[in-house]
């Protein structure tokens, strides 16, 4: 009985808080994310066209572009610019591969003071770690499904 009353009060309070909390502006945030994310993709496309014009094959050009974009993301993080972009762009700058570079370089910079082993080395993947673990795991699962479907379809 006591517990139930307590939960009731908590529920009422949480509803009250929900009413008071200002919401993020979804439309504004989405537009920023779209524009900045789009611009990052434009930069990627620019490098892709550039590399293609150098005569790099279509199969290989993705590696070249990814390398340049990761470098740019890491470079802007090092200059202290990327977090300011992220403040406005949100997912627009987190989702592209430049954001992946940011999520690895930023903890590497932050934890340098704890040394190269227990600082940089172990904390580097503190944000990107889960993405890698679940990205690789799910790609393995998808690969197995693909293999089975292909075998059955034969």
């Amino acid at each position: 009985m006591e517990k139930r009353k307590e939960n009731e009060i908590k529920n009422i309070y949480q509803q009250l808080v929900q009413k008071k909390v200002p919401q993020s502006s979804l439309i504004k945030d989405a537009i920023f994310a779209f524009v900045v994310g789009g611009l990052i993709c434009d930069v990627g496309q620019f490098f892709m066209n550039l590399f293609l014009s150098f005569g790099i094959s279509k199969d290989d050009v993705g590696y070249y572009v990814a390398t340049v974009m990761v470098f740019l993301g890491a470079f802007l993080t090092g200059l202290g610019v990327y977090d300011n972009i992220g403040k406005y762009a949100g997912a627009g700058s987190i989702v592209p591969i430049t954001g992946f570079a940011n999520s690895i370089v930023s903890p590497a910079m932050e934890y340098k003071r704890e040394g190269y082993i227990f600082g940089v080395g172990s904390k580097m993947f503190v944000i990107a770690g889960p993405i890698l673990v679940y990205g690789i795991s799910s790609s393995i699962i998808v690969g197995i499904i693909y293999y089975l479907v292909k075998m059955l379809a034969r």
Partner: protein
Amino acid sequence: MAEKKIGLHTIKLKNPPSILSTATIVGPKEGEGPLKDYFDIVLEDDLFGEKSWEKAESKMLREAVRLAMNKINLSPDQVDYFFAGDLLNQIISSSFAARELGIPFFGLYGACSTLTEAMSLAAMMVDGGFADITIAATSSHFSSAERQFRFPLEHGNQRPPTSQWTVTGAGAVVLGSKGGGPYITYITTGRVVDFGIKDANNMGAAMAPAAADTILRHLKDTGFTAADYDLIMTGDLAKIGREIAADIIKQNGYDITTKFTDAGIEIFDLTTQDVHAGGSGCGCSASVFGGYLYKQLINGNLNRIMIVSTGALLSPTSTQQGESIPGIAHAITIERSLMP
């Protein structure tokens, strides 16, 4: 028989200690805020010449204590006890500062409520006749708090509108059995209150019920109303938490709205300084009280105020394990002169 206790949880000090001096050191962002002229030292570089944020924070705390002592020509040997706490794991800012100071030390953890927790205990120590001079101090640092509680500084994430900005600041308060005021006269100690808020980006809402609980108990215990106070200031409820706390107090029959502010709202310009809901951290109430309010009391612009520092007692581990955020708030009354 506890002869100094009145009501449920309030102490009326019989030999009210006097605040002999205060000192505040803040970071560059705080030094651009509306209270910039009231701080003793505004750092140009928030590393304070040190190699890490943690070292910088500890130095801020240490130097604030030294400055507060120097202002009244006090040597560490003359101080009986030093009460301090901060937000870092194992309160290293405080204990590393105490290592240099050499004053008998009580380390405290009350999250951002530490200023009034330390002042409560330091005042009781003097009032009880256990000490002539005590020091209460606390600190917080945006960068050391971010890396412990949230993300690396250079990580490009977005902060929700309810989030608060940890104040880079340290404050020290020297209390003495002799002195001409302002005096600490009442102490209402907080209970841990938890209404089930789990969002670590909305700490104001998590702490508001604790602040309301302490303020209400204080008013009931003492018989005071809002009219008896010139100002009631909570520590770091910020914009949303202050509104909620004021509502709860009103529902319980006390209207303090016109006297009620929050240090997290006062220290920054919420519209131009990109701090979202306002400031937070131990250094928030410490620098606003030690810098701004203390001078207002000395000048006579304020006569009786209540400071209610508020703390969110979470840890990164408790949040990850899905625990809600318990809040606490400690109230102290400070009066410019003693009633005859």
